[in-house]
């Protein structure tokens, strides 16, 4: 797409695994694009689909949820619930005409080095190619 725009990404990052990784990125020489606004949450299972929908309807171009790997959840099962919810939310948003690629659920552990950085960079680039969200 020829449009020169900066995608707005909202990131719901779980405190235990993913946030640690994001924090580490802050102290390392590798940087990630500033397009993402990070919201630290206790668990990916805490994230309500209502929050995600509100992000999109208030103008976000993409939403990222990052949690611990299934099996490693600090609260044992939060990410299993998150997985089920977002599987369905993906399909609902897609049905309403909001591309599946705009909502991402990723599993990142604290020891995974630059995975978070990579995810954000990739996501930002993909959204830039996809273009901004049309009105609505």
């Amino acid at each position: 797409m020829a449009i020169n725009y900066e995608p707005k990404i909202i990131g719901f990052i779980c405190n235990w695994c993913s946030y640690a990784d994001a924090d580490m990125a802050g102290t390392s020489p590798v940087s990630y694009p500033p397009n993402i606004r990070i919201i630290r949450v206790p668990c990916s299972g805490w994230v309500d689909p209502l929050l995600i929908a509100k992000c999109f309807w208030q103008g976000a171009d993409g939403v990222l949820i990052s949690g611990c790997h299934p099996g490693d959840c600090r609260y044992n099962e939060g990410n299993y619930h998150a997985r089920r919810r977002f599987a369905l939310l993906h399909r609902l948003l897609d049905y309403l005409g909001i591309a599946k690629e705009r909502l991402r659920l990723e599993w990142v552990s604290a020891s995974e080095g630059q995975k978070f950085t990579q995810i954000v960079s990739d996501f930002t680039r993909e959204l830039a190619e996809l273009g901004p969200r049309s009105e609505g």
Partner: protein
Amino acid sequence: MDLELIQQIRGLCRDLLKNGEVNCVIGYERASDGLTARPLFVYEPGEVERLIFDDTCTHNLVKYLSDKKGEKIAIVAKPCDSRAINLLLNEGQIKRDTVFIIGVYCPGVVETGWNRKGEALQERCQTCQLLKPVVYDFLAGQAPVRSTEGERYSDILEVESKPEDERRAFWLDHFEPCIRCYACRQICPGCYCPECFVERLDPMWVGIRIAPIENELWQAIRAFHLAGRCISCNECERACPMDIPLSLLNRKLEKEVKELFDFQAGLSPEEQPPFATFNKEEKLGFEE
């Protein structure tokens, strides 16, 4: 109208009220247009003659069980309605021993409006897979002869096949007439929250502005809250004064829940709804 069926129901209700087994019977009576039906609450045995049952009895009376908690109620339930009873039992909203379920064999109901009765069965009836209620204390009527086959999701597939911006425009166009009367929510047995998320003003999720974006947020999240719980009675679509195709939204999620979790709401009172449980091994498209 099947007179034998209606005599069965009236006789039973007369006895239940006389014996004090129930305080109130929730059934149907003739509406003020003399053609269609409306809900009826009978408290006196002498009033049971007002009860009717025919193909205009479209209302899902299970909605009213949430208003009458703690009382002993008898309720006339079609097969789809009985699934809503299972839903309320499953979610701990009513106790099984406070409700006497008068199940009816249902040949299907027709499209109705005020002073308007259609010829054809409603769409949901044309593809209904239940001939008799899934839970009942008494079963009235006779098994109808009706097909339980039929492609349930052809209209959903049609919307899914549209290109993305056409889909976007389709839904925005359909949500624009919404006047946020909340009839869809009020008529739904599954919507019984004392405070709906849309009434919340701090934080203000949706707010009071009546505009396409806010309307869509309202509809999308209500549909999501009903995912795995909606039994597709379609009363929301019938109640909507602005003809919004709500069943296109609710049945889409019904289809996805079936595909993702092999689950259908309300078939048994002791089921595990998909969002109250989880499965460790499933992948659902989020590969490691």
